[in-house]
């Protein structure tokens, strides 16, 4: 069969007459004369077993819509899953802006042809800096786990010390990512957590010493608990000459204290709650933040856009700050880690979100999350055998629900909930076996009182 696809809508020069004209111009007989430097032994002579092309855009649309028609999502189902990807309200303006073709299809131009890209990234950096209480924020990293991995590596490079202390309560997938990233140069040490889910201060004192580059902890942590002794943790790290490294969910920061207020030196976290759809996990984007000190700025692997004048008075321009620290600079592998395509569109989106929410919106969303989550805990605790937030720690939007006393496993409970149109919380019984049959529930501003009552009523019924 003759190869090729004449007149394909995406390929203007597949028009045979044009193709002929261009071949004639370069003096070739046919398309087979291209790839002259690919030797016969390397030429692929088979057929790729890939379905023939759809005959029309309409057929593609029908196929994909039908493929996904049986799937559920968090609009069809009432969702209480979080655990690293959270359902918050996405203001319409966020989608409107991040689907603009000008932004969507931009990439690596200069501040002249892509001024909007530079300015929007600078503004995102600036607004997240205000939110987390730091001076400097990077163009986004892939996700929070990668941002946390880089945060640890930055502390290691800055201090020249080998050890990073990680908390016992940490998303196991995030731990795997951090440890895989750092293992060539970093030794990871685990600090215990107390029964209420916080860092065990006595154990921390034993684990921190002259070898410690940094102590990483999260607020709230993976299981939803707010760390109340952050200042003490930072003090212990600092007294040993180590860095205080704090991972944070930024949507908490309209109401919760910023990490620098309890001594953080490097902050990292996840941007997805800030106006980005979950996208089956594809909405994740990480950030790091520090003070504006050369010793920190020089350890970022990411691009950092800075504001600058132009030769025209009154005109804002932008450029790359300290470009040569990155692997795009002259040092290549001698630069800091590596840089490449990551998640800039989500940084832009987070900026739109923060500009739209403003100070009042961020305060209100935090408050609503905390009220709704507290209400859910209260309602669930009214169900016989169910114990929500049984350890009694402070929480923001996520909390553990213990089903052990119901005689059912979390898996069984979630199957029953699913049949009622509800995604129950993430089963953490395999990740933390000592906790028994517990699930991590997430309640945010998108949950109405009716949603929470419905969860409680269904649980009461299926557990009765």
């Amino acid at each position, binding site marked *: 069969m003759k190869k*090729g696809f004449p007149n394909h809508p*995406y*390929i203007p*020069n597949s028009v045979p007459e044009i193709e002929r004209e261009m071949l004639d111009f370069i003096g070739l007989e046919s398309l087979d004369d291209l*790839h002259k*430097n690919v030797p016969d032994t*390397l030429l*692929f002579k088979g057929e*790729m*077993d*890939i*379905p023939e092309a759809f005959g029309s855009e309409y057929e*593609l*649309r029908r196929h*994909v819509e039908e*493929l996904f028609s*049986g799937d559920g*999502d*968090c609009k069809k189902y009432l969702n209480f899953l979080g655990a690293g990807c959270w359902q918050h309200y996405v*203001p319409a303006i966020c989608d409107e802006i991040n689907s603009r*073709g*000008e932004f*969507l*299809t931009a*990439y690596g131009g200069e501040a*002249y*042809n892509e*001024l*909007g890209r530079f300015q929007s990234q*600078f*503004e995102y*950096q600036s607004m997240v800096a205000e939110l987390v209480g730091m001076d*400097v*924020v990077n163009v*986004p990293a*892939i996700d929070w786990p990668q941002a946390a991995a880089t945060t640890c590596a930055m502390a290691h490079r800055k201090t020249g010390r080998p050890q990073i202390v990680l908390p016992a309560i940490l998303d196991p997938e995030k731990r795997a990512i951090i440890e*895989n990233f750092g293992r060539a140069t970093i030794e990871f040490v685990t600090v215990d957590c107390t029964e209420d889910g916080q860092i065990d201060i006595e154990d921390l004192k034993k684990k921190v010493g002259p070898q410690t580059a940094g102590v990483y902890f999260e607020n709230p942590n993976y299981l939803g608990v707010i760390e109340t002794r952050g200042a003490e943790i930072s003090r212990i790290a600092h007294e040993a000459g180590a860095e205080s490294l704090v991972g944070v969910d930024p949507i908490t920061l309209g*109401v*919760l204290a910023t990490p620098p207020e309890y001594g953080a030196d490097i902050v990292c976290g996840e941007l997805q709650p800030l106006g980005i*759809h*979950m996208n089956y*996990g*594809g909405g994740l984007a990480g950030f790091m933040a520090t003070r504006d*000190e050369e010793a920190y*700025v020089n350890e970022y692997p990411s691009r950092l856009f*800075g504001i*600058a004048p132009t030769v025209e008075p009154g*005109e804002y321009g932008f*450029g790359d700050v*300290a470009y040569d620290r990155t692997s795009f600079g002259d040092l290549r592998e001698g630069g800091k880690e*590596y*840089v490449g395509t990551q998640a800039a569109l989500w940084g832009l989106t987070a900026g739109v979100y923060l*500009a*739209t929410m*403003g*100070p*009042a919106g*961020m305060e209100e969303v935090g408050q609503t*999350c905390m009220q709704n989550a507290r209400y859910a805990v209260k309602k669930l605790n009214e169900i016989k055998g169910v114990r929500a937030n049984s350890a009694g720690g402070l929480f923001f939007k996520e909390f553990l629900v213990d089903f052990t006393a119901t005689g059912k496993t979390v898996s069984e409970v979630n199957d029953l909930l699913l049949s009622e149109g509800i995604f129950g919380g*993430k089963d953490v019984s395999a990740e933390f076996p000592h906790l028994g049959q517990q699930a991590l529930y997430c309640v945010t501003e998108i949950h109405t009182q009716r949603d929470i009552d419905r969860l409680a009523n269904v649980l009461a019924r299926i557990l009765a």
Partner: protein
Amino acid sequence: MKRIDRSKKVRTGFHQAKWDEPIIFELSTPGERGVSVPKASAAVAAAVGDGISDLPDHLKRKERVNLPEISQNRVLRHYMRLSQMTLGADVNIEIGQGTCTMKYSPKVNEQLARLVADMHPLQDEDTVQGMLQMYYEMDLYMREISGLDKFTFQPGGGSQAIFLMASMVRGYFESIGEADQRTEVITTLYSHPSDAAAPAVTGYDIVYVQPDPDTGLPDLEAFKAVCSEKTAAFMVANPEDTGLFNGHIKELVDYAHSVGALCCYDQANGNAVLGVARAKEAGFDMCHFNLHKTFSSPHGCSGPACGAAGVVEKLIPFLPVPSVEFDGKKYRLECDFADEEHGVSKVRAFMGVAPVVLRAYCWIRMLGPNGLWQVTKTAVLNNNYLFKRMMSIPGISAYYEDGNNQRVEQCRYTMEQVTKDTGITSGDVQRRMMDFGMHFWTSHHPYYLPEPITLEPTESPSKKDIDEYVDTVAHIIQECYQTPDIVKAAPHRSTIHQVDERWMDDPDGWAITWKIYNRKYK
């Protein structure tokens, strides 16, 4: 009225949008709101209080966040204006960003990708059977395109995929007890910097095999000189960023294998070879493709993205988890294949960037095997047409023209003759291109070739587009000789004028956020 003269070949009348837009903080008016936020119901508040006053003081935020207060339509207008000052690939003739494969991103894919917006990555498998089927079939397609045996879509970008490949190399050698012996990764000058930088993060020493000065490609003798029992992997792009395909690649791969090393194929430049040459026939053990480049998912100002990484059978246990498997009835997430001790387990959270994978799936399904072949053939045809026209511009040339080479999908040109003649650099010409609504990328750093211009047309532009692009370059090169001051002072009709970058490397002067700008420049 006289007929309006439109005989000009280049857009001398172009002017980019210039809104002179303030920084967003400057738009703030106290009290303005951009969106109203859901409140807890009165009954909820009655049951639990205000939610925050029972927090200890030291856990409460002390001051309101210093964010701008702006009405919704002004936020929208701000970002619409910023978008208008951004020449994405939807707007301009995107030929100039060599190595980046700036092809057309079909709009239907964009709409379909939004079907998955509200899916949570931990949803029960029964509720994501369509999603899992899509991942499963994409794995099968990528196997066909590469000839390798299994793919993961977890890496969130090409560089992270390279990092994954380096991590798998390390895991493999640990599993056979050779990790201590194999401390080096070999790469080439014209492969992406991440082919050096990412393996360095995994702890490898980086060794460069130098190109032959005539062909621009490393030959077997040069490779033998650097490849030894210390070599863990050969990490290479083919074609490299020069647009030259190394026809001797299999000899290098075979030699690397003969000393026990693995070979990793950076296929960021994969648009050159779809359906024409594959990783398998060249003997590679792993490869990665950028779904946001070759497979049309838009670049998004630089992500979100996906580096799809594939391996041969013996390396499947080192892939991250989970994979999608199918038992004939149901698709499910599977971790059983993984080597728990030496496998990589995870490089990115969850299943990677699903909308990017879905867009690539749509793109492949609109092309089929014949269309994929056509994509590559037209991309290479376009580039060779562009090459012949570019090389006819006085002062423009290309290194490694030994009479035998034919470029594949891109080319790194040099305008060193123009610089010698006029003092004007490729950076100057780059800025002048902006005055015509176009641009180009020079090169990765350091510039191994002087005064570089790296162009990659892809299959997307028409012949007319390519002609206009080359006519514009030719027009500017002529200006270099005739009216050099115009070029040196460019841009003139772009959004902004020349940026004064003196403070970008000065810790006392740089301003990475508005807060710092206001602190340093009162």
